[in-house]
C-alpha cells in the first residue's frame, strides 16, 4: 500500500515535471500531474493480470478519457493534459535494453525488445486514439 502511494506520487511528479518542460499553462499543472498518476495506477493494477501491453492500452485510454473530460471543463485542448499524462507509460527502459542487447551482439533479444517496445508504443497510440475518436464523434 505504501509502495502504491509512493508510485502514485512519483508518477504525479514525473507528469508534473514534464508538464513544466512542455510549458503547460500553470493552472493546468495539477490536473495534468493527477491525470498522469491515475494512468500509472491503472497500469500498475492491471499489470499482474493482463500483461504489459493490455495494461498500457488501458492506462493510455484512461489518461485520454480524463484529458478529454477535464479539457472540456477547463476549456483547453485535450492534448495539453494528455501529453504529460502518458509520459510514465513511455517504454524508455526497453529501448535502452534493446540498445544494450545489440551492443552485445545479442541480436535476437534486441529484436525481441524492439518488437515489445513497438507493441507498447502502439498500445499507447490506440489507447489515446480510440478515446479521442469517440469524443470527436459526440461533437458533431
Amino acid at each position, binding site marked *: 500500500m505504501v509502495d502504491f502511494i509512493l508510485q502514485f506520487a512519483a508518477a504525479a511528479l514525473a507528469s508534473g*515535471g514534464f*508538464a513544466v518542460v512542455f510549458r503547460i*499553462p500553470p493552472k493546468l499543472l495539477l490536473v495534468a500531474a493527477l491525470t498522469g498518476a491515475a494512468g500509472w495506477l491503472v497500469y500498475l493494477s492491471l499489470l499482474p493480470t493482463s500483461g504489459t501491453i493490455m495494461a498500457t492500452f488501458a492506462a493510455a485510454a484512461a489518461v485520454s478519457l480524463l484529458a478529454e473530460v477535464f479539457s472540456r471543463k477547463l476549456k483547453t485542448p485535450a492534448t495539453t493534459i494528455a501529453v504529460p499524462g502518458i509520459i510514465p507509460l513511455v517504454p524508455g527502459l526497453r529501448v535502452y535494453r534493446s540498445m544494450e542487447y545489440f551492443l552485445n551482439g545479442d541480436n535476437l533479444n534486441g529484436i525481441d525488445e524492439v518488437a515489445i517496445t513497438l507493441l507498447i508504443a502502439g498500445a499507447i497510440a490506440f489507447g489515446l486514439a480510440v478515446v479521442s475518436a469517440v469524443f470527436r464523434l459526440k461533437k458533431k
Partner: protein
Amino acid sequence: MLKEVMGVIMTAGEMLLTSGAEVYRAEETMERMGRALGYTVEAYVTPTGIMATVAKDGRYLTKIRRVRMRSQDLGKIAGVNQISRELAAGLLDLAETKNRLNQLKSPTYNLPTQFFAVMVASLSLTFMLGGRQLELVVAAGAGFLAYAVDYFLSRLSASTYLRSFAAAFVVASAASSARLLLPNISVPQVIVGGLMVLVPGVAMASAVRDLVQGELLSGVVRVVEAVAIAAALAAGSAVAVGFWRF
C-alpha cells in the same frame, strides 16, 4: 483588409504548428478565426508549411508560409486556442486579436523552474523504474545534464537529432563515470530517467491525433520524426556505453 486577416490567421496557424499542435487543429483554428472575422478561409497545413486562401466578395488572397522550427509548447497551443474561442464568441476584433497573438510569445516558466522540473521528473521516473536512494540523486543530475546539453545546443541552432545524440552521449558517459565512484548504482535506470526529458512527447501525441482525424501525411511524418529521435538517443548512449567497456 484581406492582407490583415491573412496576417492574423497565418500567425495563429504558424504558432500552433511550431508549438507542436496537431495539423487538423491548425487548419480548424485558421478557418474558424477567418469565419469569425467574416472571411472564408481554406487552409492546407503540413508539418513543414502552411498554405492558405482568404476570400471575401469574389476577391481572394493566397499565401504560403514555410515552417522550419518545431518545438514543444503546450502553453502556446492553449493560448492560441483561447484567443480563437474569444474571437469566435465576438469578444475580440481584428486589431485586438493581432495584439493578443503577438503578446503570447513569451514562455510560461523561467529557466531555473524548468531545470528544477526536469530534475524532479528524472528522479521520479528513475524511482518508477525501480531506482532507489543514490540512484535517484544521480538521476536528477543526469536529467539536469541532458536538459543543459539540449538547451546549449539549441541556442547554437543545432538540429534535433544532433541535440538528442549529444545529450544521450553526455548523460550515458556521466552515468557510467558515476559508477566508478558509486559502484552500486544501476546505470540503465539512471540513463533512461535522465534522457526521458528529450522524448518528443508532444509530437507523438499530435501524430496519433492527426492519424485519427485522417491527416495521414502529418501523422506519418511525425511518427517517423519521433522514431528518428528515439534512435538518436539510443545511438548516443550506445556510443558512450560502448566506449566505456574498453
